[in-house]
């Protein structure tokens, strides 16, 4: 036990040295490290949002919003299918829960109904099985004529997966255009998206960029009414009503079929109106959009057309002359920034469904800096207290324990750096806790050595046996702590996960240090001094 091969001594020392090298960049300012020669390590510990300041935003895809929209198109598709020549008579076509329902009049033609509606079940391809696919809707045709197309479990899941993927893409495009921060955007669970933006204390602009669906449509205006009037009369058939952004009591009644949508846009840029110097958004249309636009504007000179963003009318200019060039201008009550943001949104495309924030945690840079400082102070003072205590209890062996603790902390930071794991404030707490608990392995060994010695063994035998017996206990005791840390890692998000990470790493390094470093130092000391008594 106490004879340690030379190569083991060398490799333990090399491991410690490697840890020192890996850790070094963390103790110098970032700018200084950047200028170091290439052969030196540059990697630093990644600080969590709670330490560097930043925003954690958890979004949920509003699937009911999406489903309602989807079912409305399905409804009109069903209608078209049934009215195809020769038409099949039906009654009561309506939205019903997560599907569409109707009652076929002519019970002799149920097979035809099945044939016509079958294509509407819509096969969604899944990436998992090549060639495989799931039907979006389930079709049931009852003998009494009651016919339903309802969302299938698999179809719904596949749809939601698609929406999330598409939303992430759109958010990515929007944020990239912002160009200032580098947020991470990830899917979380089934229908959530997690956006983490370091360095943003007030994520207001980010939130407004992500939170808008940005569905842009152009409609011909049929009339303008006040909100009171709108409450009293139902809209004309074939029209929908949207309120004005600037004046909520003004309601526009517009054609329900849009002239164009945001998908027809190829570019949008913020600019200024030449005469008034007001911020505006200039856009360009694709070829088919341009043709349509030219066509409609030439037929409707003198009428208003409404520019509608997410069900609100931004502006409703008069068509003075046919617009044939395929480019146009959106003016509204813009500031430079809001014009810029709208241009970004239009370029990045619209979200397939509304996103709602279900959890937000943002930390300002001030608190982050304070937390780093507090964590450092607590760690230093905690280590000093533990070191003093160990020294007063075990003297020279206490010093060995203290050196082992320092090595331990170095190893933790080195592993954190190498793994690219995130250090959070609870993570620092985890390190400090490890400092308190890491000396436990030394305490176990020392107490055991003392015991063996008091039972009349020679100093050498006592030390040897003390190590041998204590190491089994150390392993057992640490595995139980590890179980708790692993569960915590699974459960936790953000800061708390950081605690689990340092805690778990700390347990591994503690066992490693006890088995290698402490043993080696004690063995070297024994070889050097050949003690007759145990100085504990």
């Amino acid at each position, binding site marked *: *036990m106490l004879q340690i091969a030379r190569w083991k001594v060398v490799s333990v020392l090399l491991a410690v040295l490697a840890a020192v090298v890996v850790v070094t960049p963390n103790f110098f300012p970032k700018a200084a490290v950047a200028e170091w020669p290439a052969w030196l390590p540059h990697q630093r510990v990644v600080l969590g949002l709670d330490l560097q300041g930043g925003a954690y935003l*958890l979004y949920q895809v509003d699937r009911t919003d999406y489903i309602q929209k989807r079912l409305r198109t399905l409804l009109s598709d069903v209608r078209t299918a049934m009215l195809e020549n020769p038409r099949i008579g039906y009654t009561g076509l309506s939205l019903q829960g997560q599907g569409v329902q109707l009652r076929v009049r002519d019970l002799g033609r149920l097979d035809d109904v099945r044939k016509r509606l079958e294509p509407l079940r819509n096969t969604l391809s899944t990436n998992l099985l090549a060639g495989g696919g799931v039907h979006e809707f389930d079709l049931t045709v009852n003998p009494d004529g009651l016919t339903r197309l309802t969302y299938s479990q698999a179809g719904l899941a596949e749809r939601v997966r698609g929406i999330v993927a598409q939303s992430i893409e759109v958010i990515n495009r929007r944020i990239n255009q912002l160009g200032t921060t580098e947020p991470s955007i990830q899917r979380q669970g089934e229908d959530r998206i997690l956006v983490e933006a370091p360095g943003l204390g*007030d994520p*207001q602009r980010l*939130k407004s960029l992500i939170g808008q669906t940005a569905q842009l449509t152009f409609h011909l205006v049929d009339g303008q009414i006040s909100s009171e009037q709108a409450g009293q009369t139902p809209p004309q058939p074939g029209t929908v009503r949207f309120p004005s952004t600037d004046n909520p009591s003004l309601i526009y009644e517009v054609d329900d079929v849009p002239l164009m949508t945001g998908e027809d846009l190829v570019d949008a840029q913020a600019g200024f109106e030449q005469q008034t110097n007001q911020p505006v958004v200039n856009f360009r249309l694709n070829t088919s959009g341009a043709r349509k636009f030219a066509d409609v504007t030439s037929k409707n000179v003198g009428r208003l057309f409404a520019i509608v963003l997410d069900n609100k009318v931004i502006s409703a200019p008069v068509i003075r002359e046919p617009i044939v060039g395929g480019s146009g201008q959106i003016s509204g009550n813009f500031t430079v920034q809001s014009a810029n943001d709208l241009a970004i949104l239009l370029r990045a495309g619209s979200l397939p469904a509304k996103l*709602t*924030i*279900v*959890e*937000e*945690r*943002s*930390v*300002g840079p*001030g*608190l982050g800096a*304070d937390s780093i400082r*507090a964590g450092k102070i*607590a760690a230093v*003072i*905690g280590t000093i*207290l*533990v070191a003093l*205590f160990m020294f007063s*209890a*075990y*003297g020279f062996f206490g010093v060995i324990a203290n050196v082992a603790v320092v090595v331990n902390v170095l190893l933790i930071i080195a592993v954190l750096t190498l793994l690219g794991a995130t250090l959070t*404030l609870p993570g620092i*707490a985890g390190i*400090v806790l490890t400092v*308190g*608990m890491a*000396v*436990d392995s030394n*305490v*176990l060994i020392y*107490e055991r050595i003392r*015991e063996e010695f008091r039972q009349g063994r020679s100093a050498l035998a006592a030390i040897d046996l003390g*190590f*041998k*017996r204590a*190491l*089994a*206990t150390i392993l*057992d*005791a640490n595995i*139980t*702590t*590890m*179980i*708790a*840390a692993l*569960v*915590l890692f699974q*459960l936790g998000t953000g800061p*708390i996960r950081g*605690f689990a990470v340092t*805690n778990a790493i700390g347990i591994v390094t503690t066992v490693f240090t006890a*088995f290698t470093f402490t043993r080696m130092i004690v063995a070297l000391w024994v070889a050097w001094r050949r003690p007759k008594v145990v100085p*504990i």
Partner: protein
Amino acid sequence: MRKLRMIPDNTRIRFMWLRRFNFPASVFLSTLSVVLFIFIGPHYGIDFRGGSLIEMKPVTTPYNLASIRATLGGLNLGDVQVTEVSDAVSGTSVLVRVQQQPGGDAAQEAAIAKVRKAFGDTVDFRRVETVGPTVSSELAYDGTVALLVTMFAILAYVWFRFEWQFAVGAIVATAHDVLMTLGFFVVVKLDFDLSSIAAILTIVGYSLNDTVVVYDRIRENLRKYKKMPLPELLDRSVNETLSRTVMTSSTTFLALLALFIFGGEVIRSFVAAMLFGVIIGTYSSIYIAAPVLIYFRLRSGRATSEGETDTVGAPGQA
């Protein structure tokens, strides 16, 4: 140099005898904790209750807490609690807790926006946390599951490494710690949130760490002293490990104390719970985990196992 000894050598405390006092006390306190937790309940943090937590620091000092209250009161956000907190590093700041707003997830966001707008640049928003109703119910569920999974995993491990009696003993001791900590949250009025669950899980790990060390010694002594009556053997094992138990608790306590005083407001309640946990975990390893083994007939199955060799093995033998 005279060395510090927390526990004198040859200490012989009769823990098994003491159990006639501390068992009823522990049962009573644990039950009381459960009653308090269920009927009075802890102060749930936003993780489980939903709502918002805002830490702000007014730009101009001295500031007027009453006017901050008045501004918030005028926003029509229901129950709003305003408290001042301070710590060594960042000085004083104002903590605002806004209750969960009716109207689902989007309504919480709207409330935050109102507060930000009302104060504008007059305060520095140091921390803004909002948890909507969807997430808060999930977090509560996840927390409970995590706790149960941990207990179960540990039960399995201790069973695998020792024997079922030890596994049950460890669970009794751990459950005791968890219940007492829940009571602690109610009595001290700490915010009970996700980090509290983290603290409890850590306490579970820590307390077991202690318990396993004691159990390790009991197992060893069971093999060494085959004829010794169980109560005496348990007493002996606890006393032998007592010095270590107290040393480790002391160092851990010291490290946590530094965190509690200097670590800042953000993790204070987390650390407070762990400080309590170190004490209660140490207590339970000594006064609960070992004495409870008396009730499990530890000896009977063991007397005949002659063939077993004394391998108190060192797995890391090199």
